[in-house]
């Protein structure tokens, strides 16, 4: 007499897939957030003709409280040139763009040293501005 083998169903538990995807997503969002500066408060100055920034390597923000940030992290103005030089490294001429996001009411005493630091580090400045409303 032949005894029939029992067949076991082995399926991947698909119910957990959504949770796994969600956790992975949270992980990557947090990872990306480390370099993000969207949480900083600043208002762009207005200009008539604007260009889209390309191949930028870093972003420097001066917020409403005149504090400076490099890639979303606070930094002292004295350390900015060295930190930017490290970030830019030996990048090619057209790939050394640094985004400069300065609050429109910031004064020269705060933003000029930042511009000088970017220039010293060999960065190409791209002022982030908004379109002037007519």
């Amino acid at each position, binding site marked *: 007499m032949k005894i029939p083998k029992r067949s076991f169903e082995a399926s991947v538990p698909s119910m957990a897939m959504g949770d796994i995807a*969600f956790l992975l*997503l949270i992980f990557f969002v947090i990872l990306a957030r480390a370099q993000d500066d*969207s949480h900083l408060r600043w208002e762009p100055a207005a200009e008539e003709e604007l260009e889209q920034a390309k191949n930028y390597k870093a972003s420097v923000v001066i917020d409403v409280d005149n504090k400076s940030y490099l890639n979303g992290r606070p930094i002292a103005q004295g350390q900015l040139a060295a930190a930017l030089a490290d970030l830019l490294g030996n990048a090619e001429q057209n790939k050394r763009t640094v985004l400069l996001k300065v609050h429109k*009411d910031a004064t020269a005493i705060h*933003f*000029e040293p930042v511009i000088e630091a970017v220039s010293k580090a060999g960065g190409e400045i791209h002022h982030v501005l908004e379109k002037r409303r007519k």
Partner: protein
Amino acid sequence: MKLRRNKLLVEPPAGASSDIAFILIIFFLVCASVQPEQGRPQVIPKSEEEPDKKNQSQNPEVELTRTAVILNGDPVSNKTFAPRLASVLARKERKADKIVVLKSHKDVSYERWINVTGLIEKAGGIVTLQIEEEQVHIVN
């Protein structure tokens, strides 16, 4: 005799809810992460330790205050600044002579600075900054 109605079990398909949530998250993330990075590129010559004073004196100098623009020592209105600077720069042939030395007062706002540097660049000038260094005066 009463006939019993069959009660139909109507439930939303719970299996797809995680997929819907996932797609919604992706949608909001993409919406949040698209920040316009529009603006204006600016080339500022690298600062030198010992600037060539002979050459520097030939370059046009612009002094910027909160309310006024001073071109080579003469106050000019905002409207006449661009054409006057353009006429000064038109006489310069070498690229090095088209460098405009910009000296801003401490209280000049970024918005005003952007407007004036925009005018300088439109007039054909290359902006370079003259930043005042803090000096300590000892009074006897």
